[in-house]
Structure formats: structure tokens, C-alpha cells
């Protein structure tokens, strides 16, 4: 069990600030996902926790003990790298045992731990193979296995799925989720740029932008109560619709956000109307793109069974309780007192 605390963590490379004072607590046993666009500092933050980068200033605590001056191997961490980073000249067994060997674990225990982890990941039949004889998915399992045998307090993942193809990615995502449920005592930190991965895996998500934390919360919180325009746009697929100008002013805000699934086609009470310019059929969902006469088309989600031909004039109504209002700084406006007036 390890509670990770980041206190005003700052990292600079030369004159560029990559992490600009991050405060964050990751609870013991929780799976925290760092998500954000490329260059937001999520990987750097992970590498600071890992110890591969020096902390410029601030403090990093595991269970209240400062880790600033500890080398990675003293921190009780394990890391799964984006490219798997298996040792090409060592068999799967040796890859997994290498860290234990360096930690002077007895040969018998080493063997037991490797075999146990290999069984758990169903790679026990591959132990004598070299990494180049494995498929991408198998390599990923070995990389995870190498991390598991170390019995880490903290488990770090650096975009572990980005080198896999789409179908394998879903399977492995499930594996990692299972792993998290099995290893209840292990704190996990997971970096990804893919918000779907973040939503499906995380206990809590930390959205980063330009070296700052935008918002930390459970997937539900981020989804239904984004604390900024950026988070609102980043979380959810397809993206939230943003409306500005006259439409937003009518709702007393600078930007009005509404997710595609919170729009209903209603020919009588629809307050916005437009022409269908594009449709996307994903089987379970059917997305309709409406031209409201503003820059971006409005995306509306319908059930997979419904069909609307192109060119149809459609009226839509937003679900009032799911409207998100933002001021011109991109911050949410809480209008509890005003809501009745509208």
C-alpha cells in the first residue's frame, strides 16, 4: 500500500517549464490515469514519480516518506514502457527475473515468483523464448510480468497500449483492469493520451494541460461536471458540442456545452433547428451532424435503429440539466439561482 503525494512539483528542462507546480494525492491502491494532449507533461510527471527524471523543486512522498533522493530501484516501483523495453538478448524468464537477481532474491523464490506471474498472465509456456519470437501482445504481457514479479508498491504504465493494434488494445485494456482488481494493494499510475482508455480504466483521472492539472476526479465527475472548457472538450467521445454567440448568450454564458447524447430530436419543442449535413452509423449509435448556421456542426446521438436522411430539416432540444455553461475564461458558471428564470 502506498499513498503518493506530489507537493508543488516543478520540473524544468533548461529554460522550459514542463511541470509547473503540481499538487496531487494518489490514494493507496487506486488506479490514477494521467491524460492530456501530447506535450502536456503527463509522461514527465510519471517519470518524476518513477525517478528517471530529477525533480527540479517540490516534494514527492510515498506514504509520507520523501522519494526525491531515491533512485528508481529504491522506490518500490515497477514500470511498463511504451516500447515494452524487453532485453532483446534475454529469454522471457531472464527478462522477468533480472530485477530479482539484482535485488539478490534467492534462486528458489525467484523461480516461484516468475512462474506465478507467468501463470497469472498466461505466458508460462513462453518462458524460454526470446522477445523477438513473441507477438506484440505477448511482449506486452512479458513487460507487465516483469513489473509484477518485483511486487511493487507502485505500478507505473507509460502509454502501454499505444504500440498495439486496435483489437489487441481492447483485450489488453481488459487485462490491465483485471490486474488492478487482483492487485488491490498496489497503487497504479497510468499515462495515456486516449481518453477512452482513461475513462474505462481509471478510479480517478487527472487531466493535465501545459504542465498544470486541469481537473482531478472520478470518470463520472469529469464527464458530468467538467471544471473547465478544456476538460469538457477532452473527455467524452464524440466531443461535447460547444456553442457560442447568440445561442450561448440566451443561456447567460460565453460558451454553452452539450454532449451529443443529451440532445433530443423534438419537432415541437426543439429550440435549435438545422439541416442534416452528415451522418455516421456506428451500429449501436447513429450520429447526425446538423448545420445550425454556425461554424461547427451540432452533433446529435440517436439510437442505432433510427435513420434520418441527409438534407432533412430537424429541430432539437437539449436536456436542460445537462447543459454546461462556461464564462469567457473557460470556467464553469454555476447558475443554480438563475436556472428557474430561464
Amino acid at each position, binding site marked *: 500500500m502506498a499513498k503518493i503525494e506530489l507537493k508543488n512539483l516543478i520540473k524544468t528542462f533548461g529554460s522550459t517549464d514542463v511541470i509547473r507546480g503540481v499538487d496531487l494525492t494518489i490514494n493507496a491502491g487506486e488506479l490514477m490515469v494521467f491524460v492530456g494532449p501530447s506535450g502536456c507533461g503527463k509522461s514527465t510527471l510519471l517519470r518524476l514519480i518513477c525517478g528517471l*527524471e530529477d525533480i527540479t523543486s517540490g516534494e514527492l512522498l510515498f506514504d509520507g516518506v520523501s522519494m526525491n533522493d531515491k*533512485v528508481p530501484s529504491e522506490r518500490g516501483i515497477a514500470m511498463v514502457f511504451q516500447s515494452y523495453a524487453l532485453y532483446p538478448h534475454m529469454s522471457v524468464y531472464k527478462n522477468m527475473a533480472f530485477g530479482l537477481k539484482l535485488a539478490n532474491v534467492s534462486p528458489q523464490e525467484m523461480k516461484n515468483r516468475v512462474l506465478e506471474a507467468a501463470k497469472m498472465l498466461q505466458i508460462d509456456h513462453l518462458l524460454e523464448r526470446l522477445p523477438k519470437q513473441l507477438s506484440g501482445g505477448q511482449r506486452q504481457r512479458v513487460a507487465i510480468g516483469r513489473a509484477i514479479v518485483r511486487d511493487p508498491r507502485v505500478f507505473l504504465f507509460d502509454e502501454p497500449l499505444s504500440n498495439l493494434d486496435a483489437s489487441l488494445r481492447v483485450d489488453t485494456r481488459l487485462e490491465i483492469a483485471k490486474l488492478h482488481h487482483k492487485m488491490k494493494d498496489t497503487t497504479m499510475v497510468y499515462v495515456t493520451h486516449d481518453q477512452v482508455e482513461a475513462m474505462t480504466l481509471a478510479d480517478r483521472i487527472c487531466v493535465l494541460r501545459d504542465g498544470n492539472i486541469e481537473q482531478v476526479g472520478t470518470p463520472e465527475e469529469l464527464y458530468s461536471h467538467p471544471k473547465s472548457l478544456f476538460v469538457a472538450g477532452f473527455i467524452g467521445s464524440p466531443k461535447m458540442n460547444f456553442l457560442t454567440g447568440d445561442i450561448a448568450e440566451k443561456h447567460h454564458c460565453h460558451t454553452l456545452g452539450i454532449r451529443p447524447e443529451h440532445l433530443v430530436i423534438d419537432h415541437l419543442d426543439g429550440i435549435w433547428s438545422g439541416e442534416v449535413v452528415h451522418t455516421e452509423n456506428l451500429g449501436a449509435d447513429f450520429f447526425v451532424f446538423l448545420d445550425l448556421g454556425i461554424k461547427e456542426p451540432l452533433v446529435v446521438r440517436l439510437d442505432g435503429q433510427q435513420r434520418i436522411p441527409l438534407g432533412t430539416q430537424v429541430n432539437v432540444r437539449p436536456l436542460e440539466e445537462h447543459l454546461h455553461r462556461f464564462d469567457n475564461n473557460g470556467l464553469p458558471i454555476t447558475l443554480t439561482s438563475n436556472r428557474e428564470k430561464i
Partner: protein
Amino acid sequence: MFKKHILTTPEVSSLQRQKLRAAFWFLAPMLLVLFCVAAWPLLRSIYFSFTNTSLTNLYGGEWVGFKNYLTWKTFSSGRTIYSGTLADPAWWNAVWNTVRFAVVSVSLETIIGLMVALVLNAEFKGRGLVRAAILIPWAIPTIVSAKMWAWMFNDQFGIINDMLLSVGLIDHKIAWTANIDTAMLSVLIVDIWKTTPFMALLCLAGLQMIPRDMYESAKIDGVHPIKVFFQVTLPLVKPALMVAVIFRTLDALRMFDLVYVLTPNSKATKTMSIISRENLIEFDKFAYGSAQSTLLFAIIALFVALYIWLGKLDLSGEKS
């Protein structure tokens, strides 16, 4: 110097500190050895050049200033006599020989090497075999190739004279290595034979980095092959070529063994290295030879500085 640096920067983490400490201990033995075999002997050689040290009495030398380089005496008659290396016609002859040799050999090697590389870059049956064959001259020790060619250049029984006579290019046997007019030519021939493969392989490596589709698009556009060479190929291999040229030039400027064996004692081929070693070891003019070797070092250093400055070369490969 970086050891001191890490001790004064508290924010450097233990991992970085561990790496820097390791780097220090990893580099220290190499630097110590290089200091002993390169820097220290160089400094001592330069020091010797300002003394009158002799081979038999290495520690009995006294400081004489620039006497080994240039000194003059004015007689009461008004006649001034210059002495020292810089006033020594034998030295200037060696400088001229070396420079001439370097310029001619390096330019011919570059041109021929590039041509051979272009041939090897084409796809044909037995290419691997041909590439192996051209590596043979490179693999043969210089001394051995000098001896082999000395025999082929032999005035009485040499095969070169025999070939040229039977073709009718010459009407009498030539003493290639002994004759003052042909000695330099024979040295050049052997050096070009031996080093062109090296140039060709470096050029070939450069050529093979050029994507094939570049040629194909040029072909589709109907560009003339010669134009393709000057406008596509040459600019792309130029960086590789420039580095190869400087390495070869430095090699040519310090040239010693081929001349020593192929054309011993020929005034027409004596290089700077040959003449300084003669003075250093054979003529017991240790300090005088040191002055000459120091001058050679200065010339090469100047050349490198100029080349780097003019070419803005990045030799360290760090930027790529």
C-alpha cells in the same frame, strides 16, 4: 570538472549523481592513458624543439629558443646567413612534396572512389563478390603493398615495364621508383590503388542512404542521368564525402611508410614525416627533427581548424 559540478548542485537527484559519478570513473582511465600516450609526448616533443637535446643525451638539452626554427647571423661583411628548419631547402622540398602528394592523391581517390561507388550502387549479379574484391587492397598492410608494387615497378624484371613495352606505350624500360621524374608518380599510383576502396566504400554507404524512389521519380520525369548525378546524388552524398575527404587528407599529410619502403632516399618523394624522422633518429639531430615534427603538427592543426571553420562541419555526430 563535472565531479566538482555535481558536488555544488544540490538539486541533482541521486540517479543523476550516480550516473555522473560512474561517468567520471569510466572516463578517468581513458583520459589518463590518452594523456600519457598523446598529450604528454606531444608537449615534450614541442619542448624538445626549443632545446638542443640529442638522441644520446635526452636530458642534457638546454633551452635555445627558436634556434631550431629560424636563426640568422649577420657577418661584418654585411652578409646574413639564415639557418634553422624554416631556412632549410630540404624541409621546404618535403613540405612541397607532401602537399602535392596530399592534393593529388586525395582528389583522385575521391573522384575514382565516387565512380567505383556509383558502379557498385547499381544492382548486378556478383555485386557482393566485387565489393569483397575491392576490399583486398585496403586489407593488405601498407608495407606489403609497397613491396608488391616495388617488385611490379622493378626496372629490369617488373611486370609494369613488360606490359607497357608490349603495348608500345614506352620504348625502353623505366626505373619507376628510382627515377626522380617518376618516383612521385609511382607513390601516387600505389596510394591511390590502396586507398580508393576506402573512399569507394564510404561513398557507397552515403549513396545507399539515398532513397531509391528519388531516382525513380527523376527517371519518370525524364531527367538526364548526368543531371541527376549533379543535382540529386552529389548534394546528398556531399556531407559524407566531406568527412571522408578530411580524414583522407590528414592521413596523406602524415604519410610515412609507403615512401619509406617504395622510394627510399628519393628527394622527389621525401615527405615531412620522413624528413623529421631522419633527423630525429638517424642523423642525431633530435631537437631539429622535433622542430620539424612540431611544424607538421601545426600545419595539420591549422588545416583542420580551417576546414571546420569553412565547412561548419559537425564531426561529433551529436546533432544528427
